[in-house]
């Protein structure tokens, strides 16, 4: 019976009966012309870049896998990871404080976000880099007592790497707190009530019920933040934190090959950003569980846009059609 219906379906698709009019899809000529023009323009630009002698592809090749560049890459990567971790933990804490009923904690959290979001990151980085000019010594302890936990010379504690990490991490915390707050507030109040009515305490409710659901809203923007962070680490070159950009600048300060070295930097930043997009897609799928089916792949969009031939789409629609009419 199944085979019979399938053959009936296919034969119908191949040669429609004479009494049934054939469906002619709209031809999108405008799309084809626009695509052609765009491809020509981009192709021309790439061609001229490839043939430009000032780009010195040989120098790009020489430095692409240079040891100094790899050292910088390593610094950029751990700085990105550590700053994001600091930002996310501190940001979540700030978000919870901002949603608390304690007016002092709410006020402090708001003040933090106001200061760190309201001043340029570059200014903050230089501030941390020159912190020794503000405080000669660092002393962390309990105020008005003689108890101290950390004390020492500012310059020896706040190395360029630590200063870079603090600047990036604290700045990120301000942005992350707003993202986390929006995520927490996006979860229906009924979820908290249901958890409370089961006897769950506020902290457990937050950890097990609210935050996992908030993640669905938090992850896409945090993915963007991570990608941004990777690129913003280039700013810490102003305090010579030995990240990728610092080392690139060191090289072209000596050999004056500014453009080829910037191409090396761009190639690495682009590759890393591309790699970072993969875990983001995976996390979005994971925390999207229990929601609607996931989004369509870029390839599927090409088909549906009508740029690629419609045959593929017909092939998908075919079998389901035969199932519908088994007669």
């Amino acid at each position, binding site marked *: 019976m199944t085979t019979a219906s399938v053959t009936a379906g296919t034969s119908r698709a191949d040669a429609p009966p004479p009494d049934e009019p054939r469906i002619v899809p709209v031809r999108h000529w405008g799309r084809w012309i626009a695509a052609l023009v765009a491809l020509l323009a981009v192709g021309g630009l790439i061609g001229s870049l490839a043939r430009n002698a000032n780009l010195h592809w040989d120098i790009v090749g020489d430095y692409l896998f240079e040891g100094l560049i790899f050292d910088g890459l390593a610094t950029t990567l751990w700085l990105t990871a550590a700053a994001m971790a600091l930002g996310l933990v501190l940001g979540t804490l700030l978000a919870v404080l901002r949603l608390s009923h304690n007016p002092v904690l709410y006020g402090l959290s708001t003040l933090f976000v106001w200061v760190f979001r309201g001043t340029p990151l570059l200014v903050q980085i230089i501030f941390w880099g020159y912190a020794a000019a503000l405080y000669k010594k660092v002393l962390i302890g309990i105020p008005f007592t003689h108890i101290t936990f950390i004390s020492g010379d500012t310059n020896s504690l706040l190395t360029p790497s630590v200063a870079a990490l603090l600047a990036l991490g604290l700045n990120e915390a301000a942005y992350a707190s707003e993202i986390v707050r929006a995520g927490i507030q996006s979860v229906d109040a009924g979820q908290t*009530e249901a958890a409370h*009515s*089961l006897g*769950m305490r506020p902290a*457990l409710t937050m950890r*097990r019920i609210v935050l*996992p*659901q908030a993640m669905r809203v938090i992850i896409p923007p945090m993915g963007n933040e991570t990608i941004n962070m990777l690129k913003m680490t280039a700013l810490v070159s102003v305090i010579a934190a030995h990240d990728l950009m610092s080392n690139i600048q060191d090289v072209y300060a000596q050999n004056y090959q500014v453009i080829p070295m910037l191409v090396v930097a761009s190639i690495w930043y682009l590759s890393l950003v591309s790699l970072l997009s993969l875990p983001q897609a995976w996390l979005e799928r994971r925390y999207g569980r229990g929601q609607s089916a996931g989004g369509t792949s870029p390839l599927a969009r090409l088909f549906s846009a009508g740029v690629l031939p419609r045959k593929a789409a017909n092939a998908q629609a075919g079998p389901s059609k035969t199932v519908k009419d088994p007669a």
Partner: protein
Amino acid sequence: MTTTPQTRPGGTLTTAEAMVRAEGVRKNFGRLEVLKGIDLTVTSGQVCCLLGPSGSGKSTFLRCINHLEKIDGGRLTVSGVPVGYRQRDGRLHELREREVAEHRRSIGMVFQRFNLFPHLTALENVTEAPVRVARRQRAQVREEAMELLDRVGLADRAHHHPAQLSGGQQQRVAIARALAMKPRLMLFDEPTSALDPELVGDVLDVMRSLAEDGMTMVVVTHEIGFAREVADTAVFMDDGIVVEAGSPRDVLTRPQHKRTRAFLSKVL
């Protein structure tokens, strides 16, 4: 209003012990007075149905019973213990969040909009609180949860997420989730109001079987048929007060008050 002991369809003789006792309970939302002095007693093992037009305060009163809303006046006790307060030296001391949480463990609540946890499967929804709150053995909890899901007719949907279930199925999972904490009292806040008409029956069947097992239940509902058939007490509320209370036969078929009659003529 006090109810006398009586035999239940389940056959058990209920004691006169009051599960819920409200005396002059008042509640305001800002300037708006939602509850204007509610007096109500629900005896252990009884089913009490709260009826009335929307805005009459029935849901608010129900939410006061497990302290989702704080009362502004009067006395409200569950099993003799004041809800949300501790009595000491003739004063009522407000409880801490975790003490309130402790109280809520013995009170199950079912919501109009189900409020299942969408990121967990049906089974995980049921096991979450016994494992995380009561800290019981996972294996044993799972076994009991499967029995509960079987009882509400959803054992085959145990590994589905709420979004993959119909409204009626979600509500039955929500009932199983509340029962997993072995509550002494079950609160139902319009459990069938958000359901398609053909799905209402399954949920009411589950509630009916719970009542037959002798569970103490307070049900806010518009299902007059259910109230007439299952309830031991029907309470008609309007404008923040109890207008009329008594056996469903009296309240629903021979209402004494004009407001009750007007309401019933609209819904029947």
